[in-house]
């Protein structure tokens, strides 16, 4: 029985389909899920999420925080923000990173800037990994 995986970010659905394995970075460290995994609900950290689909393809996604729920081989990922590796524009991510660093040095509510910074860093890391895999 393959895993049935549904990955959504706050803005849209990124992936839905059957998979044989899934790797993510939880708040407590790396996490690998194969069919038959114990049911769980975990918080996700900033990092890459890899899915090997039943067709043998690999889907790489930059995830910035969120939650992963696994029950009876049904896996739901609710990411705060996430982007498919192929959609990542490295130049834009780099620009976003610098902008976020600038914002952080200013006053006000730093949450949005911190959020933007972590997201930009996750994007860059995943894009790098994606390039290396090619």
């Amino acid at each position, binding site marked *: 029985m393959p895993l049935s995986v549904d990955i959504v970010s706050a803005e*849209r659905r990124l992936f839905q389909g059957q998979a044989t394995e899934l790797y993510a970075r939880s708040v407590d460290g790396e996490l690998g899920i194969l069919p038959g995994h114990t*049911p*769980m609900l975990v918080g996700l950290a900033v990092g890459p999420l890899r899915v090997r689909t039943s067709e043998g393809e690999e889907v790489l996604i930059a995830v910035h925080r969120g939650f992963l729920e696994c029950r009876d081989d049904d896996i739901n990922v609710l990411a705060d923000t996430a982007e498919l590796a192929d959609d990542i524009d490295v130049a834009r991510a780099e620009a976003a990173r610098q902008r976020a660093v600038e914002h952080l040095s200013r006053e006000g509510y730093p949450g949005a800037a911190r959020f933007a910074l972590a997201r930009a860093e996750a994007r860059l890391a995943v894009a790098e990994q994606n390039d290396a895999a090619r």
Partner: protein
Amino acid sequence: MPGAGELRVLRRRIRSVRSTQKITRAMELIAASRISRARQAVEAARPYAQGITRVIRDLASEGAVANHPLIREHDDVERVGIVVIASDRGLAGAYNANVLRRAERLAKEERDAGRGVDLYAVGRKGESYFRYQGQALAEVWTGVTDRPTYDDAVRIAERVGHDYYEQRINRLWLCFTNFRSALTQVSTTRKVMPIDPRTLRGGQGFPPQFTFEPDPVALIEQLIPRYVEHQLYAALMESSASEHASRQRAMKAATDNAGDILNGLTREANRARQAAITTEISEIVGGAEALSAD
């Protein structure tokens, strides 16, 4: 030559109405394209809304979480926060008036019940409305409503959420415009926090050997802010779609009106032109007759 002056005035008015019509038509087209963008964003975000609501519901049925202050209804609500989403620009028909009136009514209800009200305004129109009424605003965000992004929602949720978590306010309302269809947009109020107990009922819970990482209480504390952000995002998008739909309708009416005015003016101008020609001919004929009579 009589009529020539009148004709010049008419031609000038026709030119001015025509250029106004061009502007209103452009605004109509822009608004139309923005509606579908906001609509698609609402649709695309729906799976997340369903997912997070389900997870919170399941968690709420866990004993340790059920009595968490973020889930529980407050015994005595002293202050409420109302986030009012209006637009930055006018020319959108009754859009702003409707949502602001709705907000005003909600604020009055809460004040009549003896509670303090903190107003948060999104959009310049809301800001100027409340300022004019002499009401203090806790915070104002502008430049958001035309094309809201998720980051905007995060920024707003951080501020209002902070006030809620710190218990500066014990209840959080959203006042926005719900996009039912291209023809109907309804100003709506929605209580975001505390979460409606009806939403939380019926969670299927978790089997005993379920693993939580971190523990359920820490999870709910992370989930609730995401929930608030997402509610705000959806409300911003719904409002934006409604704003653009209202503007499209208002601008379509303006374009149609300009067309009617142009028709009338053109007819008048033609009449004036003909009158001028007729006068001119009769003058020539009259002049010729006067000469031949000699």
